[in-house]
């Protein structure tokens, strides 16, 4: 029992619970609290990330059931935040699913009064919060769960989470595509040398959808099932997104639908920005083992805690079957210079990103690449259209 309690009451667990609770209040109270939530997301997280230092401990030793409770809480929070936001989008006395009436009679909390006071800038800020929360927590957990290919519950929950950002098919492409093609030209989700995040986001998004389509239709053909059926997980995935859009329609009509898709696609862009920084410029010979050196690893404490160890990307890619709490820190892997929460903003300013990452990519060439990868480096440099790379002779040295 003591062991159980001490595993529950760790700084990490307490910090996350406090955070979850404060977001629960901010997103439910709405109105001006959206500003507070946006401030926390945009500035506080990044600041904490900068000063929070590294977490180089391996394997928390947390029992799986506890870590799973943490993971499975997220979907409920994601749906609640979405539902409440949709509710506030409604007008007058409309009461989506009777939530407002229920809370008013049982707790005295008056959402109708809040709605009447809410201004358009507050709603826009709330939409930004919802998008970043869906992308940062919903898709991270969606990613984690869809890796558990052996568990139906995990896959379905994970796909519903990925559908929040309009792309449940990520669950197909990521596991059966990206994890095999990482670092090769066949992978839409590996950022190429010299490519800006703004070029990457559409190329990667549509590339992954096309790739998922091929993988899924190939599977259906082998099973002798029709593409035009509910066996097709591309369609069921899109249907999940439409179901969310339907809830927003019930709440606020077509305006609600438009706002839903704006939030959902913004979240998707955020997710792709994370994809962008994870493998920027890295090359790998197709068909060879994916090694820890094929990802930019990051052990920044706050990023790892918030994003369920996703930044421990080197181990994740080398062993895709490991649940997040078993991921180790791999201090010798190629390192990202800052936490994810900082790197995303850096990526948005391409000259700054180049200045920070290009020396690291060149260092990767010297210290991590193996001779078989040299020709790929030369080719990637040639195509980069960037002086940093074209004039680089690292592989030849």
């Amino acid at each position, binding site marked *: 029992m003591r062991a159980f309690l001490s595993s529950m009451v760790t700084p990490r667990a307490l910090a996350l619970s406090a955070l979850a609770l404060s977001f629960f209040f901010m997103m439910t109270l709405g109105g001006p609290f959206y500003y507070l939530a946006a401030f926390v997301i945009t500035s506080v997280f990044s600041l904490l990330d900068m000063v929070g230092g590294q977490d180089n401990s391996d394997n928390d030793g947390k029992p799986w059931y506890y870590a799973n409770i943490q993971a499975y809480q997220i979907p409920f929070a994601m749906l609640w935040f979405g539902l409440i936001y949709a509710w506030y989008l409604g007008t007058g006395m409309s009461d989506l699913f009777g939530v407002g009436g229920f809370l008013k009679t049982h707790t005295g909390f008056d959402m109708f009064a809040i709605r009447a006071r809410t201004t358009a800038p507050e709603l826009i800020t709330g939409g930004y919060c919802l998008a970043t929360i869906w992308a940062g927590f919903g898709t991270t957990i969606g990613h984690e769960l869809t890796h558990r*290919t052996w568990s139906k519950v995990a896959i379905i929950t994970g796909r519903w989470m990925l559908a929040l950002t309009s792309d449940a098919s990520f669950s197909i492409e990521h596991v*059966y595509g990206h*994890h*095999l093609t990482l670092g090769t030209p066949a992978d839409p989700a590996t950022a190429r040398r010299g490519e800006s995040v703004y070029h990457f986001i559409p190329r990667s998004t549509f590339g992954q959808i096309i790739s998922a389509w091929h*993988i899924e239709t190939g*599977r259906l053909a082998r*099973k002798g099932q029709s593409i035009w059926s509910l066996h097709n997980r591309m369609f069921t995935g899109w249907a999940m997104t439409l179901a969310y859009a339907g809830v927003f329609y019930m709440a606020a009509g077509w305006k609600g639908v438009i706002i839903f898709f704006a939030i959902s696609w913004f979240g998707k862009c955020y997710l792709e920005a994370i994809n962008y920084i994870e493998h920027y410029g890295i090359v790998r010979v197709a068909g060879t083992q994916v090694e820890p050196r094929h990802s930019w690893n990051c052990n920044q404490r706050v990023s790892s805690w918030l994003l369920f160890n996703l930044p421990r990307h080197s181990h994740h890619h080398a062993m*895709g*079957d490991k649940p997040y709490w078993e991921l180790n820190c791999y201090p010798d892997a190629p390192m990202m210079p800052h936490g994810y929460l900082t790197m995303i903003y850096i990526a948005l300013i391409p000259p700054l990103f180049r200045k920070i990452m290009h020396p690291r990519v060149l260092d990767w060439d010297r210290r991590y690449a193996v001779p078989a990868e040299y020709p790929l480096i030369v080719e990637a440099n040639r195509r980069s259209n960037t002086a940093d790379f074209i004039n680089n002779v690292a592989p030849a040295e």
Partner: protein
Amino acid sequence: MFSKIFGSATKPATVTILPADISFIVEPKKTVLLSALDQNIKYPHYCRVGSCGTCKSKLISGQVRELTDKSYTLSNEDIQAGYILACQSVPKTDLVLEVPKLRVE
């Protein structure tokens, strides 16, 4: 009763690999691949999640419970020829598998 519900054996299964003629024990609910790796057998593998096909093995005799849909990974011919993915297969009975790439050193 549990074996009925979960469709897997409740006692350890013996897995024999041909042509190397290696045998090892798989504990209930564990996959063929992970059991082999735990016992330091160099079973060909790569992704461990049923997406690459490196661990494909021909099922000569016995039955397995499959954790994932192998048609993402294996071709029609492979499936019809009785191939399974070792990383996604839990033995229901003792097994004989053919894995040409697995060699004794």
